[in-house]
């Protein structure tokens, strides 16, 4: 393999994407420099097998050490997400349970009209609380995906609260944003699997079905409109499961620490 030095470095650099991002950010430039030095010496006849042998050796080295580095990183992440949540996070989980119960309350009790706004505020605060609590653990696994999953749902809940509390804006658009973003949060949470997947699944399906119950979509007379009631119940159960998981999670057995 007799690629020009610059091309060889670019090819080698492309393989460094196999390493975790933090490792790459820290050492990629040095590794490319070391690769450059090693290949230079191999070309000069200082290594057995010449430059072909050096390429094979260094690509094998990338394959083995990238895997080990990722396993090590996953162990570190596993350690951080197996620790018991601190009290403030547990309280967020409790608020989430209250929000879920507030959703179900409409099916179980005759709630006076003047308390409806308070009930909806409790629901929104409950959703925000669980999203924030779940995000803390999810971010340890995938910071970007966790943020993409949580941020729209928090913002949409905040928007809905503004509509409720200050009567600014339309319920229609706020509701659209809310149920779509919450369904998305459920999907991301299910995908990450850090908190209960049953809860995440119930939230995702429930929010999607609830979305079809928005009056202006004109689906309320269809089967989808009927299913929206089931969706609301499913979503309530989902928030209760997620909140309960966060509030009651205990310290899991973590792998032993290793040294170098």
């Amino acid at each position, binding site marked *: 393999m007799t690629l020009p030095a610059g091309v060889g470095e670019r090819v080698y650099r492309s393989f460094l994407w196999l390493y975790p991002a933090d490792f790459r950010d820290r050492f990629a430039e040095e590794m490319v420099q070391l690769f450059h030095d*090693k290949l230079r010496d191999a070309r000069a006849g200082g290594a057995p097998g010449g430059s072909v042998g050096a390429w094979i050796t260094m690509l094998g*080295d*990338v394959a083995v*050490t*990238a895997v*080990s580095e990722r396993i090590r990183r996953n162990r570190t992440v596993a350690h951080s997400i197996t620790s018991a949540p601190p009290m403030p996070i547990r309280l967020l989980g409790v608020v989430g349970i209250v929000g879920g119960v507030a959703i179900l309350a409409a099916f179980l009790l005759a709630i006076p009209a003047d308390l409806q706004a308070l009930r909806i505020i409790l629901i929104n605060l409950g959703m925000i609380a669980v999203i924030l609590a779940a995000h803390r653990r999810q971010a340890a696994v995938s910071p970007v995906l966790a943020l993409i999953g949580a941020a729209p749902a928090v913002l949409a809940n905040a928007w809905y609260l503004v509509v409720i509390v200050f009567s600014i804006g339309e319920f229609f658009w706020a509701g659209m944003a809310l149920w779509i973003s919450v369904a998305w949060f459920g999907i991301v949470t299910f995908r990450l699997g850090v908190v209960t997947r049953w809860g995440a699944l119930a939230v995702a399906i429930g929010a999607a079905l609830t979305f079809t119950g928005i009056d202006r979509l004109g689906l309320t007379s269809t089967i989808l409109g009927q299913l929206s009631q089931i969706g609301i119940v499913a979503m309530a159960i989902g928030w209760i499961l997620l909140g309960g998981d966060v509030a009651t999670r205990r310290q899991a057995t973590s792998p032993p620490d290793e*040294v170098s």
Partner: protein
Amino acid sequence: MDALSQPQRFPPVSRTAIHVLIAIGPEERHGYGIMQEVARITNGATRLGPGGVYTTLRRLLDDGLIEESDGRPDADLDDQRRRYYRLTGLGRAVVAAEVGRLESLVDAARPWALESGG
């Protein structure tokens, strides 16, 4: 009681890690220098690649056994991408503890292993 005052209480480091620590030795070395020195002190038995060198250096940095050096022996002759590493006090203590462990092993094996090995 910290690890520096009781280095023998520090968990044994991996074979690659002790090779890298000894390769750095009392000097400051960059990655390629470490790689060459490891090959030299092991008579070529251990040949690390860039990944092997830097995954080990990362772990040693995390454990506080080495640190990055600010100094550059000759900036004009050196590529700016190079970084130099040196042992910390804890790193030296751990090497000393590891040498002690190896000495006791050698002492235990020497009376019979060298005889039977001819």
